[in-house]
C-alpha cells in the first residue's frame, strides 16, 4: 500500500501541529442525518478531511462524536446524506465492500477493544491474518515493529488482562496501525488515563503522523490532546458541525459555546463536570 509523503509537523504555540498545506480532500460528509429512535444525533452533518492532517472533533458528551467515526467506516449506517471516502460512497456499500474501506481507514476504539481471549501478539496479528498479510515470520516481524513504535517492545505474550489502561490503548493502537492504514480514527484515545500517559498517547499520535504520514481524526474531550495534536478542530454542536478551523481560530470564534468549551480547561471539559 502506498503512502503520501510524510508531512512536516513543526511545533507551534501550545505544541500544536501546523496544518499540512492544502492537503487533498479524501473524506467528505455531506448533509448526513442520523437518529437513534427519537433521538436525533445529526440533522445536517457536513465535514471534509484532508490527507495528512490531524482533525480533532470535540463536543459535549453524547452528542455523537463517535457516531461520526463509526458512520465513516460503516459500523453505523447514516439515515440520509452522503459519506465519501477516497472518492467512493460509503453509505451504499455492503459489508464486503466496506472491508476495502476498513483496510485503508482503521479505528482505535475508546476502550481499545482488545480481544480478551487472545494474547497481545494474536490481537495484533488478527487483521494481518484476516487479510493474508504475509508469512508467520513476516507477521512476527510486523508485530515487533508496531509494538516498538508504540514503546511497548516485548509484550507479545501478555494477555490484555495483564495490561494497564494506557498499555491497552497503546496495544490497541499497534493493532490499528498493523495494516498500515492511510487514515487512523481515534475514539477518545486519552479518556481515563493519567496525565503522563495522556502526554505519551498524544506524542504517539504526532509520531504516527510524522513517521507514517497517516491522516488522523481524533474524537476527544481532552484539551491537552486538542492543543497538542490538532491541525484543524471541528465542534459538534446542535446536531451539526458548528465550527471547523484551527485551534487559534477556535479561541476567537463567534460561537460562545466553543470559546467556553476551550476555556473549560486544558484537562477536563466544563460540561463533564456538570
Amino acid at each position, binding site marked *: 500500500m502506498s503512502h503520501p509523503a510524510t508531512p512536516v509537523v513543526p511545533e507551534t504555540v501550545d505544541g500544536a501541529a501546523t496544518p499540512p498545506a492544502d492537503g487533498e480532500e479524501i473524506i467528505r460528509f455531506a448533509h448526513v442525518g442520523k437518529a437513534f429512535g427519537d433521538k436525533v444525533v445529526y440533522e445536517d452533518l457536513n465535514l471534509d478531511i484532508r490527507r495528512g492532517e490531524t482533525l480533532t472533533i470535540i463536543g459535549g458528551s453524547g452528542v455523537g462524536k463517535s457516531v461520526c467515526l*463509526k458512520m465513516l467506516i460503516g459500523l453505523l449506517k447514516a439515515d440520509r446524506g452522503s459519506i465519501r471516502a477516497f472518492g467512493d460512497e460509503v453509505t451504499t456499500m455492503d459489508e464486503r465492500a466496506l472491508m476495502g474501506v476498513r483496510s485503508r481507514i482503521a479505528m482505535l476504539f475508546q*476502550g481499545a*477493544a482488545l480481544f480478551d481471549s487472545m494474547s497481545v501478539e494474536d490481537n495484533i496479528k488478527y487483521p494481518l491474518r484476516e487479510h493474508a498479510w504475509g508469512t508467520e515470520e513476516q507477521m512476527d516481524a510486523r508485530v515487533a515493529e508496531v509494538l516498538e513504535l508504540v514503546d511497548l517492545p516485548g509484550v507479545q505474550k501478555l494477555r490484555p488482562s495483564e495490561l494497564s489502561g494506557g498499555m491497552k490503548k497503546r496495544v490497541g493502537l499497534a493493532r490499528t496501525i498493523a495494516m498500515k492504514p492511510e487514515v487512523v480514527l481515534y475514539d477518545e484515545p486519552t479518556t481515563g488515563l493519567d496525565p503522563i500517559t495522556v502526554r505519551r498517547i498524544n506524542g504517539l499520535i504526532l509520531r504516527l503522523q510524522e513517521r507514517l504520514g497517516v491522516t488522523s481524526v481524533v474524537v476527544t474531550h481532552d484539551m491537552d490532546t486538542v492543543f497538542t495534536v490538532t491541525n484543524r478542530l471541528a465542534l459538534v454542536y446542535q446536531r451539526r458541525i458548528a465550527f471547523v478551523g484551527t485551534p487559534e481560530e477556535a479561541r476567537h470564534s463567534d460561537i460562545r459555546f466553543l470559546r467556553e468549551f476551550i476555556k473549560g480547561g486544558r484537562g477536563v471539559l466544563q460540561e463533564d463536570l456538570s
Partner: protein
Amino acid sequence: MSGVQTFFGAIGEVAILTGQTARELVRRPFEVKLWIVQLEQGGVQSWSITFLTAVFTGMVMASQFAIGLEPFGASLYTGKLVSLGIVRELGPVLTALLVGGRVGAGFTAEIGSMAVTEQIDAIRALGANPVRKLVVPRVVAMVIALPLLTVLADLVGCLGGVFITMLEVHISFRFGIEQMIDTVDVPDLIHGILKSAFFGYFIAIISCWVGMNTRGGTEGVGQATTRTVVWTSITILISDFFLTRFFLAIYG
C-alpha cells in the same frame, strides 16, 4: 413499540442472522479451529451434566412406573415405558434444556461482553465478519454436539431405568436390556436425535443473537443472559410439540 411488534421483529432478526450464518457456513476457508474450540467448550464439557441428569431421570421414571403399574399387574412393562419416554422425549428435551441453560447462557455472556466493550465493532473494523467468527462456530458446535449428547442421555437414562427395574420388579439385567432393544426402534432414535439437532440450532442462534444485541454495560450482559435462558427454554418446549407432530407424521 408493542410487545407483538418486538416479538415479530426479533423473529425476523433471528431469521436474518440464520441466513447470514448459512452463507458464512459454506464460505471457504472453513474456520475449523474455531469450530473445534466451541465443540470442546459447548459439547465435551457438557457430558457430565448430561450424564447425571439422564441417569437420575431414568431411575426416577422407573421408580414411578414400577409402583404405578403394579396395581394393573403391568410392572414388567416398566422398562418399555422408560426407554420409549427417554429416547423419544426426555432424552432430547432435558438435554437441550440443561445444555441450553449452561451453554446458551455462556454464549450470550461472552458475546454480550464483547458487544458492550466494542469488540464486535473491532472485529468488523479489522476486516473480519463477526457472524463468521462468532456465530457460525457456535451453531456448528451445537448442531453436532447436542445430538451426540442426546445419544449419551438416551443410553445412560435407559441403563438407569433398567437398574431400578431390576431392583423394583426383580427382572434380570439381560431381560431389561433385551426389552429395551425390542421396544426402541431406529425411527424412535432418529426422531429424538433429529429433534435435538434443531434444539442445538435454536440454542446457538438465539444466544448469539441476544449476545450481539446486548447493550448497557455489565448490567445489560446480566439481563441478556437471563433472557437467553428463558427464550431458549420456551423455544425448545414449544418447538418440541411441532417437531414431535412433524416426525410422528413421517415415522409414525
